């Protein structure tokens, strides 16, 4: 009821609420560097112009790209204006306006690369191509059977191209102009190709609104506003003339028919990567956590301070940032690790800080007298720890460690930022492709559960076994 009223209000009122993801970056919609409280970008200016043309006020609603269609249908805003491309799967859920801009794709390679001069070259020589996830370029590449590496933002893609982690990058000319053209170590390969369109996305039920928007788009094209805007952003080219002469038939609508079997297998592969990352990282964390814990609780002044700094730093800053730092920062000092190794090392270093705290409690929960008894029997600290303290502490540490391990399965998803393709990345790709966020989401949840449940079960059994072997401080007690 309330929602229906809101929607009506959106019609009657002079406000056009439009959604876009400002984190997508320039030049679409982004926070104005000069004045970070406000936004700018060609989509921003176009939306303003569109609303003005319709005698409405534009209200920008920042949203998330991944779920932008779902948010539209939740009526969080009325239209999507965000370099939004029409696709067949999206067409099932929404209406598209006429195109307001025709984009083309540009392949970019490193300056010194003379082998790749077209997309075809990438295929024949088995080179990897980076692009954004869930866009015309990614679909084109996937349908063409290329080795694709999906990125969340153009910066990462071009940076990896520079570092040689991918061999080419395919991107909208708009993004390419903004992010790659000025980069002296990159160069365009071949001419722009594959015309696509940016359209306004509208809810299926709002066909009235759709026709008003189409009229407005035509007017803006006719009165030169569109040209002025895109000229200002240096994105105007002769391609755009087609906007006035022909209808919306000029662009290629990329489509992907979704094959469930293939999708599930794809998820399975991604899950295997996730498990691999999690186990690798946990091994590092579990081992590195011990010296950190002992250093912090029994070390001298300096050791103690160093351990505390390590712990608070790695625990206190986002693992995503740590991964980015390792991925883009280490190459500066000459160490270029592949993404998966960076993810394992980064997550391992991060979780070691957490494990150390778990161990510390566990060690301290073992009565100090147990150390003394061990000493009186001639043990040195290391042996006393290994033979007497550790076995008792392990039982106490096990449930929080299980917690961390389960959390780690999901934290591997941060590896997407350094372009490691794992379960969460696969989810987003597939969900976007099918627009079936709920369905695929549930399946992905099952995959995660399929990882964590056996782990939790095994940990629980181990816990009980240790309990039966009774570590005393945990005596069950009801039996005498």
């Amino acid at each position, binding site marked *: 009821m309330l929602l229906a009223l809101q929607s009506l209000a959106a019609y009657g009122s002079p406000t056009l609420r439009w959604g876009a993801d400002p984190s997508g970056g320039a030049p679409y919609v982004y926070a104005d560097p000069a004045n970070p409280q406000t936004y700018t970008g060609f989509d921003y200016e176009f939306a303003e112009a569109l609303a003005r043309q319709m005698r409405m006020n534009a209200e920008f609603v920042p949203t998330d790209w991944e779920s932008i269609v779902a948010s539209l249908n939740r009526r969080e805003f009325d239209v999507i204006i965000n370099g939004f491309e029409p696709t067949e799967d999206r067409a099932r859920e929404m209406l598209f306006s006429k195109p307001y801009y025709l984009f083309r794709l540009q392949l970019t390679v490193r300056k010194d690369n003379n082998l790749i001069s077209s997309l075809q070259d990438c295929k024949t020589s088995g080179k990897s191509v980076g692009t954004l996830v869930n866009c015309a370029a990614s679909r084109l590449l996937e349908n063409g059977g290329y080795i694709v590496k999906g990125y969340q933002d153009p910066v990462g893609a071009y940076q990896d191209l520079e570092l040689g982690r991918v061999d080419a990058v395919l991107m909208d000319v708009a993004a390419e102009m903004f992010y790659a053209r000025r980069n002296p170590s990159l160069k365009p390969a071949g001419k722009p190709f594959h015309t696509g369109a940016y359209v306004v996305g509208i809810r299926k039920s709002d066909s009235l609104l759709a026709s008003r928007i189409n009229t407005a788009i035509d007017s803006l094209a006719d009165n030169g506003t569109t040209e002025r805007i895109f000229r200002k952003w240096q994105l105007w080219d002769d391609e755009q003339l087609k906007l006035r002469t022909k209808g919306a038939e000029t662009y290629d609508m990329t489509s992907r028919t979704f094959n469930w079997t293939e999708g599930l297998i794809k998820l399975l592969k991604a899950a295997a990567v996730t498990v691999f990352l999690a186990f690798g990282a946990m091994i590092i964390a579990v081992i590195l956590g011990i010296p950190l814990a002992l250093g912090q609780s029994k070390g001298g002044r300096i050791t103690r301070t160093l351990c505390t700094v390590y712990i608070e730093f790695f625990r206190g800053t986002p693992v995503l940032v740590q991964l980015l730092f390792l991925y883009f920062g280490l190459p500066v000092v000459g160490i270029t690790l592949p993404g998966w190794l960076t993810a394992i090392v980064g997550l391992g270093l991060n979780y070691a800080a957490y494990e150390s705290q778990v161990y510390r409690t566990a060690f301290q929960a073992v*009565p100090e007298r147990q150390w003394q008894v061990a000493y009186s029997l001639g043990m040195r600290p290391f042996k006393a720890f290994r033979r007497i303290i550790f076995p008792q502490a392990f039982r106490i540490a096990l449930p929080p460690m299980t917690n961390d391990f389960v959390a780690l399965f999901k934290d591997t998803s941060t590896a997407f930022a350094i372009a490691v393709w794992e379960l969460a990345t696969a989810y987003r790709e597939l969900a976007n492709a099918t627009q079936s966020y709920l369905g695929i989401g549930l399946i992905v949840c099952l995959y995660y559960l399929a990882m964590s449940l056996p782990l939790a079960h095994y940990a629980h059994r181990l816990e009980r076994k240790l309990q039966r072997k009774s570590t005393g401080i945990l005596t069950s007690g009801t039996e005498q």
Partner: protein
Amino acid sequence: MITISGIGKTVGATPLLSNVSMEFPAGKILGVIGPSGNGKTTLLLCISGLLPFDRGSITIGVTSITAEESSLRSEKIWQFRRQSGIVFQHLHLFPHLTVLGNITEAPVHVSGKPKAVAEKEALALLEKLGIGQHRNKYPEELSGGEQQRVAILRAIAMNPEVLLLDEPTSALDPIRSGDVRNLLQDFAATGHTVVIVSHSVRFLRGFADYLAFMGKSELIEMNRTQQLLENPQDERTREFLHHSEMN
């Protein structure tokens, strides 16, 4: 020869030990008696090298530690600690090991004895104290008296030069405490020194070679057992012994 020279230990403003000095030969049994809360346990811990003290020094055989050394993690303190074994008043068995495991842990993993040998020896000791049938139980599955016997054997199994015991028979019935007495006497007979804190003057009579009586944080007197019991020099000793006879 154990020599304690003027050791002192204070926690906060409370003196736990003040200027305690004593000396007695190796291979003998020293009984320590005295009212509750007078520092007997504290003294034992200091001799074992586990509790740092503030003043004085302790010498066992040729090794000695001073007050400063007692609180440092030096090679010396580890050597000093190695000479003595201790049975704590509250036992502190290893809860994650069986009875056998508790006893063989140190011989196997510190002295490097073969496991089979260590277990055979442990079993013989267990049988001697009548708890052989409990060898595979965990400490919490034992009765109080059984636990106490395991703690004694755990210390003896390392064959320390000096064995320190803090009320080792408090939970034992008369028959079992007789067994422990015999075991300790045999142990002392092989040249080991035994220091035993006990509330039972009856238990120590005819067993300990020397007796030391602790007053509030200080050593009141020390003598051969016979002499101390029959001819106490201090009023406080007399009163304490009088009560012991009564109850």
